[in-house]
């Protein structure tokens, strides 16, 4: 049995999962060209990473719990009931109250978001990993070096040892 399984059933509870998606939408909101992180599926990436790393899972759960508590202080229905500005304020507070957890959340949110094909396509990046296809590039045009080639030696002469 792996550690994640020992620690309990699924990685996040449904409430945690829902909160995570809402938080991700504030961390990386959508634009006309790009989806918001939660709606785009970055939460799945975060959860997959947490699944294989119990310490990360605990840290993220701690961060989400902090966010839930801070949100509940502002509205009895929690984070979902807050407007965008209030959500940002809650996350700012969470980033100072549990900085390690918040850092982990950012790391995995960004990593997950920028691995999504629709995001990569939206920013003009190749929507595939670097290998195995790589990239075509023109070889060096040696004419570019004509000026440098004409320079005198730059290396310092050394006396005989």
């Amino acid at each position, binding site marked *: 049995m792996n550690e994640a399984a020992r620690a309990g059933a699924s990685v996040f509870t449904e409430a945690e999962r829902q909160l995570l998606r809402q938080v991700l939408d504030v961390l990386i909101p959508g634009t006309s060209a790009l989806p918001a992180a939660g709606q785009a599926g970055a939460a799945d990436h975060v959860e997959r990473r947490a699944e294989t790393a119990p310490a990360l899972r605990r840290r993220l759960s701690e961060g989400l719990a902090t966010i839930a508590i801070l949100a509940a202080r502002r509205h009895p229905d929690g984070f979902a009931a807050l407007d965008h500005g209030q959500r940002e304020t809650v996350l700012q507070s969470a980033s100072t109250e549990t900085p390690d957890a918040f850092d982990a959340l950012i790391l995995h949110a960004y990593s997950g978001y920028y691995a999504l094909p629709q995001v990569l396509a939206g920013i*003009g990046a190749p929507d595939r990993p670097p290998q195995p296809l790589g990239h075509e590039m*023109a070889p060096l045009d040696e004419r570019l070096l004509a000026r440098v080639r004409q*320079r005198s030696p730059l290396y310092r002469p050394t006396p005989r040892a």
Partner: protein
Amino acid sequence: MPLPSWREPVDVLVVGAGAAGAAFTWSVSRAGLQVLCLEQGDWVDPASYATTRGDWELTRQAEWHPDPNVRRSTSDYPVEATESPITPLMFNAVGGSTIHWSGHFPRFKPSDFRVKTLDGVADDWPLTYEKLEPFFDLNDQMMGVAGLNGDPAYPPKSPRPTPPIPLGKLGETMARGFDRLGWHWWPSDSAIITRPYDGRHACNNCGPCDWGCPIGAKASTDITYWPKTLAGDARLVTRARVREITLGPGGLADGVVYHDAEGGVHEQKALAVVLAANGIGTPRLLLNSRSARFPGGLANGSGMVGRDLMFHPFAAVRGYFDEPLESFKGPAPCAITSHEFYETDLARGFLRGYSFQVVRGFGPAVSALGGLGERRIAWGREHHAEHARRWNHTIALGVMGEDLPEPENRVVLDRELSDANGIPAPRVIYRLSENSRRLLAHGVDRAKEALEAAGATRVDSTPLLQTAGWHLLGTARMGADPSTSVVDRYGRCHEVPNVYVVDGSLCTTSAGVNPTSTIQALALWVAHHFTQQVRTP
């Protein structure tokens, strides 16, 4: 603890299977000597490298992180570095740090071997560039190099095994900036092949070399030296962590004690012991090999083991461009270099000099998380706008400065921290010198000038990059005087003449370029003379 019975003694026992250990073992094993190499890491399967996966960028923040204190693999040992503004980086595996290195392959220059004579500081090496040149050439052939002859910053070199890496739009943009200022630039000599070579595939310009190269275009010694070496009689044992070198009668080393992966402890006898455990691991091992004859560590009667630690202090200067640069194409860390400010000019206010490295871009996620010294992009409403300004629009210029040796910069054994086998961890004590500070400040200003000349609309900088301890040098340095050095010109310890050092520890000075080409040439030089000595005692 109980020790098993003695194993058969070998002629040569090498500690470490990285850049230097591989080169040394290959060379000596060809001479018919019985060689055993012990490596604390394991083989890494190139098929496991992350660049074939969608989440490839994340791995560099976790299991593929260059800092062993973050990575915490079972092959790693902790390094106490809270007294250093530069974090030591390394990788423990067959291939060592060449597994995750960038492949920059410049040589040290003739003047780098004569620092005392030319500039009145540090020391001269007890050998010259000219003596080392045949070993540079041999190593270039073994590793496979892309480059172009005719660089006025170097004496003429032998033909490069494969043509230079492409510049791409990013490299051409930066080259135009250097041209406008009349400064030197040249395509980087890189241990990355651009044509099929020695049974290996040519580079396909995928980008992130330092994530490991699954097609084998980037040279790492697990795919260059080791297959050839192991086709002969040499033996390599992985997951074997050496604890100490043992001293026999007569003041010579007679073997090592090592731990295997299952916790077993073994003794292995050898006629000679060769250290290739990097500039931190090698002094650690010498310091941990205490005896009545050497209470302060083996070969350390002079007190010089661990001292004169040199990194390459590194500043990162970033230019942001309006035009997209196709910065994800081409070997990311290697594009072009400039050696305009490499040699000493006293008018600059410091001794020695530095090189510029033009670094291509990072992937979208690492760009968001902060590339070469950048701050992480803030979350929230402005995130996308800042990401668009950075990703595919940034050129980073690295300022790699020569670090002069100072005895107070050193590696010692930590009194509390130890590794999984209970071996004391190394503690790194390092202070950036005033000379290095001035050198970097000059480099940052010139880099900004160059980026602006290339068309950057905004420039910022990191004056000293913390996560830049790639190069670990000088801690068992080579010299003619046994009171101020640890090994002689043939890498042999002054005080224990059957113990040799072949890694970056033996560098007398650091130069202002990446050291692997020079370290491997030194390993081949030492191996050549070792073999000669054995043949004609």
